[in-house]
């Protein structure tokens, strides 16, 4: 076994520990360096992941796999972590707890990366919990802010419930098959399909992962948590933690439980339709931009869930590509919101709802770069051509029609049209409504993170071939494991 295969994870662990230990000995005003250190570590891990695209092997007694799927999702998580970490340099400025903030985020990312690599339900569960527990603490990071605490508490309670449901489901799978290895469970598919316990396990697992992906009706926590948590943490949750749920569901359902395909396909079809419709309709009337983005993030999860229903290589490729695009778009949109919140709070420390849409009035003049990037992100989320959102929606929806699920594609396209309304509302506020505020200088770290995300969104839109190719390769891994 080659340890180089896990160089990205090892780099991340080393970075996390280094940040934690160095942070102990630094005075508060020089803790800024920790942000640079964390960002460098993440860039190194990202580089190591990209060069190992295309390897295909098992490691650590077949409990971890390195293949196109795992590497693709690791890139998604690392990109989100990188955007998060660059923008956090400004957010944590002057705080005495910089090292905790970065360490929790880095360990959450490691958990997500290990979920993407897991080839055994035990590893998958432990990594899942590593990411969850780290993000519980991050959501409540502003411990003097009642909104942040309430967000953390709701996230923690629902998250621990989802962990318990998922674990209970896993124990039944172990009971029927006698193994926790994902390919091993797939081999005993006939036994699972014959036993009534199989259905119970599927229900528990859908509920457990549905909470993490925030599929309706398991979504109640998501808008509250995304609104109350610090904006950058919401970016990590919406763009990273949600993808972790999706990759875990890919592995558990499409690879391990392919024998019960008929049962869970129906469930996912219903969940996808409810989730995207509810997300888009609820987003229409929101006045908090973070809450609006949270509901739009529900809708996006609904689109990605369509991949479970269609289950062709192209649809899975589309879903996986959507995960990457969503990582850029949603993280970018939350970081832009974070920049606005930062500006509002630095003008008046006691503003009640810093992310209220009224604060976006005239942003085009006040913070031109932030406003322009926000425009690109929301248009990408709506699926306007030449952006990442359009490419991934195109691949996903066209594969849905090809596979004979035209009704599902029609519902999804109608939903995309509805979503344009509230995305356009943000743009209207930013460019067409007058403001009494003056131009402010935009904080550099936020701007860098936004520019990186914009480059990602446009790169996938203008030059989609390599991204589609690797997403398809990742999709093939899933189907090859299942059949």
């Amino acid at each position, binding site marked *: 076994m080659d340890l180089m295969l896990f160089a990205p994870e090892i780099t991340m662990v080393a970075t996390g520990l280094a940040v934690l230990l160095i942070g102990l000995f630094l005075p508060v005003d020089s803790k800024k360096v920790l942000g640079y250190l964390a960002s460098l570590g993440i860039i190194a891990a990202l580089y190591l992941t990209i060069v190992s695209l295309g390897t295909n092997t098992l490691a650590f007694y077949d409990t971890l796999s390195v293949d196109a799927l795992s590497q693709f999702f690791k890139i998604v998580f690392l990109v989100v972590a990188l955007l998060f970490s660059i923008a956090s340099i400004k957010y944590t400025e002057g705080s005495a707890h910089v090292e905790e903030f970065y360490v929790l985020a880095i360990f959450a990312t490691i958990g997500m990366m290990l979920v993407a690599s897991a080839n055994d339900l035990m590893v998958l569960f*432990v990594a899942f919990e590593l990411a969850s527990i780290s993000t519980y603490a991050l959501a409540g990071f502003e411990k003097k802010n009642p909104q942040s605490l309430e967000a953390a508490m709701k996230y923690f309670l629902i998250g621990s419930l989802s962990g318990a449901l998922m674990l209970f489901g896993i124990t039944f799978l172990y009971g029927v098959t006698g193994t926790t290895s994902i390919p091993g469970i797939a081999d005993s598919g006939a036994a699972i399909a014959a036993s009534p316990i199989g259905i119970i396990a599927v229900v528990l697992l859908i509920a457990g992962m549905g909470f993490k992906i925030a599929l309706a009706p398991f979504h109640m926590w998501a808008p509250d948590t995304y609104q109350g948590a610090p904006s950058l943490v919401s970016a990590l949750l919406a763009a990273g933690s949600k993808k972790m749920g999706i990759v875990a569901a890919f592995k558990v359902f499409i690879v391990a439980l392919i024998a019960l395909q008929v049962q869970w396909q129906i469930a996912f079809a219903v969940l996808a339709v409810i989730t995207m419709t509810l997300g888009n309709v609820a987003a229409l009337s929101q006045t908090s931009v973070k809450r609006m983005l949270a509901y739009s993030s529900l809708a996006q999860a609904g689109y990605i869930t369509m991949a479970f229903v269609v289950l062709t290589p192209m649809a899975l490729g589309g879903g996986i590509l959507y995960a990457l695009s969503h990582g850029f778009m949603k993280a970018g949109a939350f970081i832009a919101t974070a920049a606005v919140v930062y500006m509002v709070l630095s003008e008046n420390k006691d503003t009640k709802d810093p992310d209220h849409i009224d604060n976006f009035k005239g942003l085009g003049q006040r913070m031109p770069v932030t406003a322009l990037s926000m425009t690109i992100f929301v248009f990408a989320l709506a699926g306007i051509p030449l952006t990442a959102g359009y490419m991934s929606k195109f691949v996903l929806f066209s594969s849905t029609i090809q596979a004979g699920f035209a009704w599902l594609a029609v519902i999804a396209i109608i939903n995309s049209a509805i979503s344009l309304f509230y995305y356009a509302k943000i743009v209207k506020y930013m460019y067409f409504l007058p403001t009494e505020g003056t131009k402010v200088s935009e904080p550099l770290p936020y701007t860098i993170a936004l520019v990186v995300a914009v480059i990602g969104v446009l790169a996938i839109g203008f030059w989609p071939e390599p991204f589609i190719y690797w997403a398809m390769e990742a999709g093939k891994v899933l189907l090859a494991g299942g059949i």
Partner: protein
Amino acid sequence: MIPVELYIGLSVVIFSIGLYGFMTQRNGVRMLMCVELMLNSANINLVAFSSYHGNLTGQVFVLYVIALAAAEAVVGFAILMSIFRMKDMIDLDKINILRW
């Protein structure tokens, strides 16, 4: 030897008690205890299946679950503590700033 079905019955009953408590209780600490019940019912399942199949995977899994439950409780109690310091109570029905 006790048949494995009885163990499953026990774990399902404990899990249901935990889930029921989680749905009905509104005190943060009680809800946390209900989650612990659910995790421990899964542990009973794992150990029972481990002896039924005659392999050790389940027992190893139980050790991980115990460690994770402890870690989860630490973070959970820390969050509840900060809420208690701010509001002097942990009744979740009264913690509702965030809604539309």
